[in-house]
């Protein structure tokens, strides 16, 4: 891959997804495409020269020079509040990538596919599902998506649209639920994973992304259910939680 160069990206669009999450569409001249699950580094430089750099998952499937990032605003963050609150179409930021070859999937890898997301952990998994849909792939796929409440479900309408054609989307809401909610309303556990997901014998490709305690609990439960550790790819972020 060689050394990565910083590229100048221009914001084209900033769209709210939920109260705390926005999708930033960037036009990146010189972008050479990416694999779903890969990241970019974003670098901001203040007037005094101070630089802050963070890694973000790419939300969009590979599409020429367009790159979409879906960013959750973290109140004490150095980069995310700028991206969600300040960035306007026409503004420029520095970006390099794509990076990462571990937490990636593309339709040619086949399935079955079992995706487990907590909150904004949906982002790299959505790139995989969008790529699957764009390719017209019928690889069997299940997405189990844990959110705090219905209004916090990122990509809610789009997930409803792409449900079907071999993809099953299952939500669980951990803090609040709408009236009449008949779905899961607890944290992801072994029983839920067993009910929703492909069986270990079917040797699915499993991708788990979310806050660290979420990912570690889910990965442990999956191993207990007999899934091969080598087929469980994880991506975690957030507070250490001890």
């Amino acid at each position, binding site marked *: 891959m060689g050394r990565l160069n910083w590229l100048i990206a221009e914001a084209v669009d900033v769209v709210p997804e939920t109260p705390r999450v926005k999708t930033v569409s960037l036009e990146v001249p010189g972008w050479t495409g990416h694999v779903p699950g890969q990241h*970019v580094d974003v670098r901001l430089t203040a007037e005094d020269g101070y630089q802050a750099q963070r890694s973000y998952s790419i939300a969009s499937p590979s599409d020429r020079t367009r790159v979409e990032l879906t960013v959750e605003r973290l109140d004490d963050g150095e980069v995310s509040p700028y991206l969600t609150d300040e960035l306007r179409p026409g503004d420029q930021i520095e970006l390099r990538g794509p990076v*990462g070859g571990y937490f990636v999937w593309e339709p040619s890898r086949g399935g079955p596919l079992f995706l487990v997301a907590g909150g904004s952990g949906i982002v790299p998994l959505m790139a995989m599902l969008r790529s699957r849909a764009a390719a017209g792939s019928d690889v069997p796929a299940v997405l189990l998506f844990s959110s705090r409440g219905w209004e916090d479900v990122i990509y809610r309408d789009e997930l409803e649209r792409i449900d079907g054609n071999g993809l099953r989307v299952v939500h669980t809401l951990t803090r609040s639920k709408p009236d009449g909610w008949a779905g899961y309303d607890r944290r992801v556990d072994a029983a839920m994973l067993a009910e929703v997901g492909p069986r270990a014998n079917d040797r699915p490709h499993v991708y788990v992304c979310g806050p660290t305690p979420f990912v570690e609990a889910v990965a442990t439960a999956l191993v207990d259910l007999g899934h091969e550790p080598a087929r469980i790819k994880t991506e975690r972020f957030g507070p250490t939680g001890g």
Partner: protein
Amino acid sequence: MDELMLDGNAAAGLLSDVFAVEMTTAIGICDGCGAVEAVGAVRVFRGAGIVLRCPHCDAVLMTVVTAESRTWIDLRGLRTLELETP
């Protein structure tokens, strides 16, 4: 992903400053407990530099500190690091 603790996936760009190959699929053996993991799966803490820790025993595997135009790399906690050579 703007917090102090991340994992090896989020460190891919920073590691690419140091190593010329894709690093999240590199396989490391922890010198503390002997666990074998892809770099993408290890814990990463961000401070003055980055610290990679074993997800099994928490031992420090690698630290990378960059200041101005110099980089310091400490690999004491890795028994081996297996890379894909192009």
